[in-house]
C-alpha cells in the first residue's frame, strides 16, 4: 500500500507539472496546445545533449532546457499563434496550428536528435528501502522533490508577483485586465513561454529517469489533456489536482487490476467520460471554461 501511494505521488508530481504548463497556456489564450508533449520531448533531448554529449552537469542541462523551451514558446506565440488568433474567425483554428507545430517539432526532433531512445545517467545512485514495504530509488525521490518545489514556486509566483497577478487577471477577464493597463500581447507571450518552460522542465527532469524518445510526445499530450479535464481547464489548482489524481489512479489501477490484463487506462478513460458527463467543468473549473 505504501508503495502504491508513493508511486502515485511520484507520478502525480510530474503529471501535475506537465498539466500546469498546458493549463496556463489554455487559460491565457484559449489555445489547446497539441504540441505540449512534443515540447516535453524536445526539452528532454536538449538536456540529453547538454549532459551526455557536452558532458556538463545535470543542473546545467535542466537550466539550458528550460531556457531553450521558454524562448521557443515565446517565439511560437509571437510569430504563430498571435497572427492566427488575430485573423481567424474561430478560436478553434488554433488547433490546426497547434497540431502543425506538433508535427513540426516531431520532424525537428527526428532531424536533430534521431529516432533512438536517449537517456542520461542516474543523477544519484542508491535505493531507499524501508523493509521492502516502500522501495524508492533516491533519484526518483530527488526528481519528485524537485517537481514539487517547481510547482510550489510556480504557485508563489502566480500568487504574489505582479506578472503572476497580471496573468491570472488576464485569464479571468481579458477585457478588464486590459482596462487595468495589462499589455495583453506581452503577457500572452510571457505566459506561453512559461507554459513551454514548464513542459521543458518536466522533460529535462524525467530524461534522467525514463529517458526520451520521439514517440513520447503524443501520448504525453493526451495524458495532459486528461489531467486538465479532471481538474478543470484553465484553473491552476485544477491542473495540480488533476495531475495527482491521474498519478494515483494509474498507480492504484496498475497494482490492483494487474491480474485482469491491461484495463487500467480503459477504466480511467471510461470513468472520466462519465465524470465529465456529470460535471463538465471538472473539479475546480468554471462552467464552459
Amino acid at each position, binding site marked *: 500500500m505504501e508503495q502504491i501511494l508513493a508511486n502515485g505521488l511520484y507520478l502525480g508530481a510530474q503529471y501535475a507539472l506537465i498539466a500546469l504548463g498546458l493549463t496556463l497556456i489554455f487559460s491565457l489564450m484559449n489555445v489547446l496546445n497539441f504540441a505540449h508533449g512534443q515540447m516535453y520531448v524536445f526539452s528532454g533531448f536538449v538536456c540529453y545533449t547538454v549532459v551526455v554529449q557536452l558532458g556538463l552537469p545535470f543542473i546545467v542541462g535542466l537550466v539550458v532546457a528550460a531556457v531553450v523551451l521558454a524562448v521557443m514558446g515565446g517565439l511560437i506565440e509571437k510569430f504563430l499563434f498571435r497572427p492566427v488568433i488575430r485573423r*481567424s474567425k474561430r478560436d478553434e483554428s488554433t488547433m490546426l496550428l497547434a497540431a502543425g507545430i506538433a508535427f513540426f517539432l516531431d520532424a525537428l526532433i527526428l532531424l536533430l536528435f534521431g529516432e533512438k531512445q536517449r537517456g542520461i545517467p542516474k543523477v544519484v545512485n542508491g535505493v531507499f528501502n524501508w523493509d521492502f514495504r516502500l522501495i524508492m530509488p533516491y533519484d526518483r525521490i530527488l526528481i519528485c522533490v524537485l517537481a514539487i518545489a517547481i510547482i510550489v514556486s510556480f504557485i508563489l509566483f502566480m500568487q504574489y508577483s505582479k506578472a503572476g497577478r497580471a496573468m491570472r487577471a488576464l485569464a479571468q477577464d481579458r477585457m478588464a485586465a486590459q482596462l487595468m493597463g495589462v499589455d495583453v500581447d506581452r503577457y500572452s507571450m510571457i505566459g506561453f513561454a512559461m507554459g513551454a518552460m514548464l513542459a521543458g522542465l518536466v522533460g529535462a527532469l524525467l530524461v534522467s529517469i525514463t529517458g526520451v524518445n520521439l514517440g513520447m510526445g503524443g501520448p504525453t499530450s493526451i495524458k495532459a489533456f486528461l489531467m486538465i479535464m479532471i481538474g478543470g481547464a484553465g484553473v491552476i489548482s485544477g491542473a495540480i489536482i488533476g495531475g495527482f489524481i491521474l498519478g494515483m489512479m494509474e498507480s492504484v489501477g496498475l497494482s490492483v487490476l494487474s491480474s485482469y490484463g*491491461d484495463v487500467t*487506462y480503459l477504466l480511467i478513460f471510461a470513468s472520466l467520460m462519465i465524470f465529465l458527463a456529470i460535471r463538465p467543468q471538472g473539479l475546480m473549473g468554471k462552467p464552459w*471554461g
Partner: protein
Amino acid sequence: MNTNTETMAAKGSVTARILGMAAFLALVFVAVPMFIAATGRSDFYYTLTSVALLAIGAAGVWLTFYIGRINIGQGAYALMGGYVSAILITQAGVSFWLTLPLAGIFCAVISVLIGLPILRLRGVYFAMVTLVLTEVARLTALALPITNGAKGITSIPLPGELSVLGITLIPDFSTLQNPRQAFYMVAVALMVLVYLVLWRIVNTRLGHLCRSLQQNEELSASIGVNTTWLRILAYAISSFFGGVAGAMFVSISQSIYPSSFVVQDSVNFVLYCFLGGLGYVFGPMLGTLLLYFGWDLLSVFKQYQLLIYSGSMIALMLILPNGILSLLDKKEGGK
C-alpha cells in the same frame, strides 16, 4: 476536385450547381481513371480511395462542427465500424455489402448513447472528451475477446458479389482483374453520396437550425428549437459516416487492429476540415485531398518529408487561418 467546381457550387445558382456537379462526377469517375491508365500510376488508386474514405469520415466531423462542436472522436467510430464489419464477415459470414450499412447504423446507435451525456459539453471540453473516446475505443478493442485483442482480425475476405433480384450490381471482388479500381469506384461513389446528403442537410430547415445552434445555443433553445434532438441527430449522422468509412477501409486492407484508427486519425479528420475551410460543404473533401495526398507526394523529400509537410501546414494556417476555401470569401467580399 478543382476549385472551379466548388466556386460554382458555393455561388449557388441552380444551373451552375448542376454543371459543377456533372463536372465533378466526370472528373472523379472518368478523368481520374483515364489519367491513371495513361500514366500507369495505379498506386494512385489506393491513395485516392483512402482520400475518398477519409473524406467521408471528415464529412461527419464537419457536420458536428456545424452544430458548434469540435469532434476529435471520429477515429473511434471508424474503428468501431471496421470491427463491426470485420466481425460480421468473419464470424457470421454476412456479406460485406450488408455489413457496410450495419456498421454505420451500429455506430449511429452507439453515438446516440454516448452523445446524450457528452453533447451537453462545449468548446474544448467536448473536444477533449471525444479525444478520450478514441482512446476508449482503442483500449476496448484491445480488451475485448471478440475483437481478438491486440492481434486483430486478419485474412478478411474481399467483398463478394452484390446482386438484387438476380441482377449483379457489383461483381465479386476476388474475381476482378483490378480490385483496386473497383474499390476506388465504390469509395468515390460512397463519397459522392455522403456529400450529397451533407449538402442536402445544410440546405434544408435542418441545416438552418444547425447554423443557429452554432451561433447561439441559448437563443435557439429559447425560440423553441429542440436543441438536444438536433445535436444528437447531427452527431448520429456524423458517426454513421465514420462507421461506413471504417468498414470500407477494413475491406481494402483485409485486416483490422486496435491500431487501425487511433487518436492521430481522429485529429487528422479535424485537420482536414480546418484546412479545407469550415464554411463550405466541400471543405473537408479538399482538405483531405491536400493533406493526405500531399503527404504521399512529399515522400520524395525522404527525411525532410515531415518537416516540409508540417511547415507548409503552419504556413497555410498563417496565410489562410480560416481554411483554403476562405479564399472564396475574399472574392465575394471584394465585389
